[in-house]
């Protein structure tokens, strides 16, 4: 990322020296907390604790991760019953098979069916299976979702547009720092002829958190 910031003569046109618009965070007055981030980052580099490359690579890796990764895992489980069994038995090991890594975290995969619907929250903060879904959406981190989903899950799910029949049991799972949940949504009707790639396109982020179902095929 270019950081030639000496060209102050052009700052009023909101373009960086490379001709790209600054992100909004770049042209608001510096906050105390942003100054703290810059200072901490530079000190850690100066002290030899971190390198600039490590930091850049970590940010880039974060940008590359997306719910498409989790969707590949779910699609595989839909087409391969043996993989599904392994995934439900040991999520961390099963995602490793597909080249994804749970790191030190234990990944628990829960299957949604017509009888049982699982939904995930982190009441403590924002624990989330980032290695498979990328960074969590803002609502997942908000007080409103975290407070209410544990108490009135059906009402919260209906705000997401998901109304479940009374015959479906709803289970809410609270993540911890060391354990993350991935929901294995039910495979939609009418998808028997679809291959893994086509199926993966039906698997949206929210269905892997448990606030939605997988999309119906077109």
């Amino acid at each position, binding site marked *: *990322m270019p*950081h030639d*910031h000496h060209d*102050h003569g052009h700052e009023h046109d909101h373009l*960086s020296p490379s001709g790209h618009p*600054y*992100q*909004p*965070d*770049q*042209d*608001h*007055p*510096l*906050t105390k*907390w*942003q*100054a*703290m*981030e*810059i*200072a*901490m*980052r*530079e*000190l*850690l*580099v100066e*002290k030899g*604790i*971190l390198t*600039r490359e*490590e*930091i*850049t690579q*970590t*940010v880039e890796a*974060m940008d590359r991760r997306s719910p498409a990764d989790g969707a590949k895992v779910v699609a595989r489980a839909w087409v391969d019953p043996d993989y599904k069994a392994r995934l439900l038995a040991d999520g961390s090991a099963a995602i490793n098979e597909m080249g994804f890594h749970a790191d030190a975290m234990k990944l628990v995969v829960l299957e949604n069916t017509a009888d049982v619907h699982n939904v995930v*929250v982190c*009441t403590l*903060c*924002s624990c989330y299976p980032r290695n498979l879904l990328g*960074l969590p*959406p*803002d*609502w997942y*981190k908000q*007080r*409103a*979702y*975290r*407070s*209410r989903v*544990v*108490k009135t899950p059906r009402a*919260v799910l209906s*705000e997401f547009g998901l109304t479940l029949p009374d015959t479906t049991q709803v289970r809410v799972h*609270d993540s911890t*720092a*060391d354990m993350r949940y991935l929901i294995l949504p039910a495979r939609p009707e009418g998808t028997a002829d679809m291959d893994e790639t086509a199926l993966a396109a039906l698997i949206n982020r929210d269905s892997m958190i448990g606030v939605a179902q997988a999309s119906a095929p077109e």
Partner: protein
Amino acid sequence: MGGQPAGDIDFDQHNFALWEKRVDALLVLTSGKGYFTVDGLRRVLEDMGEEAFETMTYYERWVQSVNQNMLEAGAYSLEELSTKMAEVTARGETYGDCAGGGE
């Protein structure tokens, strides 16, 4: 906060700003190197009290917690931090102006 009364869910999504991603990266890297654990991160967040959850954004709380944990781990001193923050702030007006020294 599980079970506490709360308002409607706000479905707006903001793009993560570069500084927020960097805070996240600093957490991942420093905790990965064993300077502190997620429990250490949580402890400082809890110590901030409920008001911080109303007045500060998510990554504002996180940067404060990572910094506190790194200070406690002896990675740098409070004096080094304040000197560096003053130097950073003096570079210009915006994040773009001030963030250049690290890259």
